[in-house]
């Protein structure tokens, strides 16, 4: 059984979409979960629908939403203070050391992050790579397990089947609440998705995907 789980993603809402069901499972078992959130999603395109945010009010609004979501999920939150859409341009080395500082202190037995190169958004890829690097820099015996989440369309062909497949149907209600806590990003999203061209004919598939959270176990060469 894991003793402490650290989740590392760049944006408020990545946690809700990515692994809130899994986090809820850990919390049910009484295992502490800490979310290290890279940015405040300052550059998000969604401003609410109908929109109520603007480029300058969005950071504070999303911060509040992040805190709400973490309350729903009953997890600790640390905000790392990077800026949305710029993480790949930062020093990988500095971010890795920054993250390692938290890992050294928290001593998690499991780290969940995005699969570098297979996570669609440049911030996801960069944050995932820095998280993996942070763990790699730890002494071999002290390294937590790393579960990496791939979201590219073609990741099954590339990486094969994920080792961890969590059915989160029982936690789905909480997951939905956590997603909806990010009001500026997802208000009315689920009804809209049915009609959106982005999800044409895929709605059922998407809902099914939401009820399953998959991770690849990272293996370190040395």
């Amino acid at each position: 059984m894991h003793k402490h789980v650290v989740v590392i993603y760049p944006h408020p809402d990545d946690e809700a979409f990515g692994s809130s069901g899994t986090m809820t499972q850990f919390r049910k078992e009484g295992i502490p979960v800490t979310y290290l959130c890279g940015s405040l999603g300052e550059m998000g395109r969604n401003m609410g629908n109908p929109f109520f945010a603007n480029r300058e009010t969005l950071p504070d609004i999303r911060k509040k939403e992040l805190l709400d979501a973490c309350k729903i999920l009953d997890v600790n939150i640390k905000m790392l203070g990077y800026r949305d859409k710029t993480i790949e341009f930062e020093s990988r080395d500095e971010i890795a050391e920054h993250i390692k500082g938290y890992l050294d202190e928290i001593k998690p037995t499991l780290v969940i992050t995005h699969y570098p190169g297979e996570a669609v958004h440049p911030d996801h890829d960069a944050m995932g790579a820095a998280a993996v690097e942070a763990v790699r820099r730890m002494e071999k015996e002290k390294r937590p397990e790393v579960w990496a989440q791939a979201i590219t369309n073609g990741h099954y062909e590339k990486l094969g089947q994920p080792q961890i497949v969590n059915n989160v149907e029982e936690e789905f209600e909480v997951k939905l609440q956590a997603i909806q806590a990010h009001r500026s990003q997802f208000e009315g999203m689920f009804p809209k998705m049915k009609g959106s061209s982005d999800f044409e004919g895929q709605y059922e598939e998407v809902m099914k995907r939401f009820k399953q959270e998959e991770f690849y176990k990272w293996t370190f060469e040395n």
Partner: protein
Amino acid sequence: MKAIERADVQKALDQYAEQDVYVHVETTNGAYAKHFNRNHNVGAYIRNAQVRYTRAKIVDAEDAFRVGLKMEKGWIYAEGVTDWEWNENGELLLAGHDSEGRLMVALQISKNPFRY
């Protein structure tokens, strides 16, 4: 933000002419455009460039507006702008949204740097 009234925005733009101001300019089709089988992702973004413009003009383009700032040695331009706000920090915010409220373009002008 509220729908642009051309004359009001023109007045606001004029107030920032002939002085050092900070601008934020961005445009994007979203980080997931490619993921959703649209064209590849495009976008550009400048935050807190200090500039000085001699003249500004907002032009009605029927479904939206175009805004041009003429500088001594160049231009700043944004199109597809639909909404605006002049907030309590004196930041003049202009933005264009799609039908789902997503930001597609922004041009912002301020006497002081935007939060970074």
